[in-house]
């Protein structure tokens, strides 16, 4: 499925294929709606936001680089930025990673390292294998946008415990992503 979504997104980017966009819509719209509802939207608002996210996918598809990200990661980013805009007090505009990458000497710490393409299936398996306490904090961060402090209050655990569970989860999940550091 991951490979199919990449090819649909590329067809939208390169050929403006409405047929492939329809397939992306069918696969992602109901999940984007679910994502927005978990972030606190009612069904009607979530429906609108899922539509808006996919409208942005259509408009910005030419920026998608399959060597850098899976289609789901890229679409997730669109949805995440939209949910930040709508639900959180934070309005600061995210750094646009693609724009940054285009400027060759932008950073002090530039090495000749490409971001390894992730193995979606493997990430999926590793998420399923997370211990429950790590999965819980990951879900609270990703699906409800809770900050570390808010997670601590929600689960009645110390801030240090929240951070260490997130670190452990991230470490485990990135085993598949070719992290060399």
């Amino acid at each position: 499925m991951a490979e199919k979504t990449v090819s649909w997104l590329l067809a939208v980017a390169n050929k403006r294929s409405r047929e492939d966009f329809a397939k992306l819509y069918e696969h992602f719209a109901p999940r984007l709606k679910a994502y927005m509802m978990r972030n606190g939207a009612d069904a009607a608002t979530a429906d609108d936001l899922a539509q808006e996210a996919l409208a942005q996918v259509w408009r910005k598809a030419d920026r998608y680089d399959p060597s850098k990200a899976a289609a789901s990661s890229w679409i997730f980013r669109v949805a995440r930025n939209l949910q930040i805009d709508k639900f959180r007090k934070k309005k600061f505009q995210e750094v646009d990673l693609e724009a940054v990458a285009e400027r060759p000497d932008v950073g002090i710490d530039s090495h000749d390292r490409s971001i390894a393409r992730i193995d979606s299936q493997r990430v999926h398996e590793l998420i399923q294998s997370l211990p429950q306490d790590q999965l819980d904090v990951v879900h609270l961060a990703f699906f409800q946008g809770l900050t570390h402090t808010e997670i601590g209050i929600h689960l009645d655990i110390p801030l240090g415990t929240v951070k260490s569970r997130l670190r452990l989860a991230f470490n485990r999940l990135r085993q598949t992503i070719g992290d060399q550091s």
Partner: protein
Amino acid sequence: MNSIHHHLDDSTLLSYGAGALNEGFSFVVATHLQMCEQCRERQAQAEAIGGELLASLPPVQMAAGGLNALWAKIDNSAAQPQAISKPKINPQALLDGDYSDIRWRTLVPGIKQHIFDDLESDSGSVRLFSIAPGTTIPHHSHGGGELTLILSGSYHDEIGRFQRGDIADLDDAISHQPIADTAEPCVCLIATDQKLRFSGVINRVLQPLIGI
């Protein structure tokens, strides 16, 4: 150019990727990311995790006729250019050392600050500090988190030496005393989500005056 030695904590990056950091912290993280490829890679990994979480959510049915409505919306808006909302604060100016929009106020001798009032940061704040060479930030701890990004100059404290691009990502357990240690001022961007607590009698007298 020196390399970056001090990076963002994994828990901060994962939450940033999830869209779960407050505005003040997000601003400092975004500014550091413009300088640090290693952290940008980890940010991309966090988004990959987000992508998989999204893809595995149980779907919720969309309202009928959704795709047609979407085409109508896309085709209508194609006629009008999309308004691009400007970011509240441009990190690039800070990275370039352009402080023309910064209004410095002296905090205590040796330390000037500018508070970014527009940025929301729970009970804390986002500030730009300019610390004169040899000045010590009074000994302090913080309930909650603190992110300090060095823009120019450097300081050292109990943890190590921090130079341009380095970021100190600290949680509430840390009590530290940074000292600016080069010939030029140390300019750094600091976000906190709680009020800072300064120890020592003199500092407790100063604290209400300087309002940190």
